[in-house]
């Protein structure tokens, strides 16, 4: 069933047992993103040490796709160098826009390749991207302003 392609085991697992959910008390930057078409919201805390990501924590409401995706992202990107994390993020965005033509490199994306099926459901791509966009926004802010607290942004 096509649906199983979307809702891979890994996704439902992350949804039911999300990683890094619950906001850390301290952070270098905090962003808040919403998905205007469905109302999903996410707050994401990012802490870095030099150019290395020290922690990503998050909280929010959303569908299984958006929750699982941010859970995967938070797990995958932590401890990475920010440049590397950006490259991974780009690969993930590219996968989401592939309309089902790509599978994703498991070496790079690890659990996130389970999201490949989402790219065939245009209405869900934004769900899958919500957490990643929040991360990218947070990382951009850190790069731009050194470390600054309590940025609030929103995007799609």
């Amino acid at each position, binding site marked *: *069933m*096509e649906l199983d392609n*979307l*809702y891979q085991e890994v996704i439902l697992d992350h949804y039911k047992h999300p990683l890094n959910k619950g906001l850390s008390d301290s952070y270098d930057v905090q962003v808040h993103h919403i998905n205007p078409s469905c*109302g*999903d919201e996410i707050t994401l805390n990012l802490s870095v040490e030099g150019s290395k990501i020290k922690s990503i924590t998050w909280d929010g409401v*959303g*569908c*299984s*796709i958006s929750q699982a995706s941010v859970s995967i992202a938070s797990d995958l990107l932590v401890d990475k160098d920010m440049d590397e994390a950006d490259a991974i993020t780009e690969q993930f965005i590219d996968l989401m826009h592939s309309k089902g033509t790509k599978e994703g490199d498991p070496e790079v994306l690890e659990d996130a390749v389970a999201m490949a099926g989402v790219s065939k459901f245009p209405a869900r791509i934004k769900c899958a991207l919500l957490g990643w966009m929040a991360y990218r926004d947070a990382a951009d802010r850190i790069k731009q302003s050194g470390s600054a607290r309590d940025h609030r942004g929103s995007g799609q």
Partner: protein
Amino acid sequence: MPLDVATIRQDFPIFRRTVRDGKKLIYLDSGATSQKPEAVIQAEGDFYRLHNAAVHRGAHQLAEEATDAYEGARSKVANFIGAQAEEIVFTKSATESINLIAYAMSNAPTGSRFALTSKDRIVVTEMEHHANLIPWQQLASRSGAKLSWFEVLPDGRLDLNSINSVISADTKVVAITHQSNVLGTVNPLEAIVARAREVGAVVVLDACQSVPHMPIDVKKLGVDFLVFSGHKALGPTGIGVLWSNQLDDLPPFLFGGSMIENVTMESATWAPAPKRFEAGVPNMAQAVGLGAALDYLNAIGMENVFEHEMQLTKYFLEELQKVPTLKIVGPLDLENRGSCISFTVGEIHPHDLGQYLDSQGIAVRTGHHCAWPLTRKLGVPATTRASLYLYNQESECDLLVKAIVDAQRYFA
């Protein structure tokens, strides 16, 4: 008279197709947009094939025929809601109709009864569609007027206890939906119109979810403006309606050809309504298509459409509530209630539920339904909505219920 749904469905070509690998289409999203009978598609096509020309502009036969077809559609719309033809303005959508009113009010000269100042107030409700909320926020911010609103109670009804303080003496505009596109609630117009009259406020009625579903007579409603969209009433996309019996007092909104009386390089004067509000070559084929849609509805009878939907709504409400953890968001009784049925199902996110239903061929809408403040007020991130029309039937409810139960298992 009960509807012959099987026969009706044959008039709608889309029900001949299947979705998601051969599944029968269960279309429960008419609150977003309705499906179209072949007669409407044909009417639009035949306008292009036989009569296409710019209305009101040419002295040739095609232009005459196009004008007849377009003005004929205006008469049909007028008849459908108990109005006069010259009280009907064609817009592109209900959204444009409401923006037209709000901008025209901004264009009204100081002292006009439509001109708002910082001494005035605009009243809306917490259950408004964004289309009947944001234009008023903007008018308030342009004019300095204050914005107030009726709250929504947990049962999905407006809190009218405070009606005399919400619609205060300084209220100039009351903009309210006839039927909520989320809750299905039909609002108590009589009380609101009566109070608006007391303070001399104009009432703008968003009838997007009522005109397609029940008999409407503007003379009985007592409102000043009424808007709806063609595409939710079996009509084409790209056509909306604005009704008012006070159009001649309202300044124009869009400026251009055909809405003028005289034009020089420096300034212009305006044609009488409704032309004053229809700048440019209008959406002629879409008006004609809407006329055909209303003919179709008239042939069936709006009383019958209404009865059918009421029976269906009763069945849906009853059956849905049998599903464990399913909670209806909106009135549970049929009194003053239409056929938009929103609900939540335990912890399943509506987006996931909608996706599962889609995999079974069932089209519903999920999210905030363009009424985000309402969703927030109700304390849910989003809801799933089944919205019904004349082509729906009880068996579709049974399939919906079964699919929801399956989804519960899938996401368990």
